[in-house]
């Protein structure tokens, strides 16, 4: 992968982040591994790349009046604790099965979100 393409994919990840409230890691990690980083280094560097992305997103959303800080702090702190636990049990669980179950969960969730949007208009 060329550096120009990596920059372009970074920008696309940022647009997705601003639009949908995600960090961008879903594009950062594959981009960084394609540039030759190991999975571990890609994931670690992706986390660092997420910080300026969400800082800009939060700054803009704060101006638009959309950020609710107390829930954000509760969710953020709770997820740090759970991530430590998740990393420890990750080794002992059948990851492929979990991955498929989660994918099905995402599709059902997507269906529900689309269904609500269709009804609400």
């Amino acid at each position, binding site marked *: 992968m060329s550096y120009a393409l990596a920059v372009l994919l970074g920008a696309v990840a940022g647009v997705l*982040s601003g639009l949908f409230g995600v960090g961008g890691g879903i594009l950062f990690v594959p981009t960084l591994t394609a540039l030759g980083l190991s999975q571990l280094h890609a994931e670690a560097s992706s986390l660092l790349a997420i910080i300026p992305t969400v800082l800009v997103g939060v700054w803009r*959303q704060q101006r638009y009046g959309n950020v609710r800080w107390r829930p954000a702090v509760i969710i953020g702190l709770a997820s740090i604790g759970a991530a430590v636990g998740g990393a420890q049990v990750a080794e002992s669980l059948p990851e492929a099965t979990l991955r498929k179950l989660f994918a099905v969960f995402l599709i059902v969730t997507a269906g529900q979100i689309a269904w609500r949007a269709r009804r*609400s208009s």
Partner: protein
Amino acid sequence: MRLLLIGLAAGFLSALLGVGGGIVIVPLLLLAGNWELRSATATSLAAIGITATAGVVTYVAHGEVRPVYAALVGVPAAVGALGGTALQQRLPVRTLSFLFAALLVAIAIRMLLQ
């Protein structure tokens, strides 16, 4: 209490499956919390900022972070986030919901094929 559970689910699933927290936080705020889409995505970004900072501190301590590579994708992403948030204020929530649902399906397909 509900927010605490959303945070726990987000942290646990992202560590277990390698998906970002936002993929879990936004749908749960929308469906379980009945939040409006723009405040759900904005609050998700703030929560992710906290989580990512904690993660980076851990990885930096282990020497796993490559700052130049992080900047290579992170700086254009910050610029992209300016555009994304501006675009989000102009698009109707209905359209955004359908697009977000499409993003979830795309991620699900990618996970199924892995």
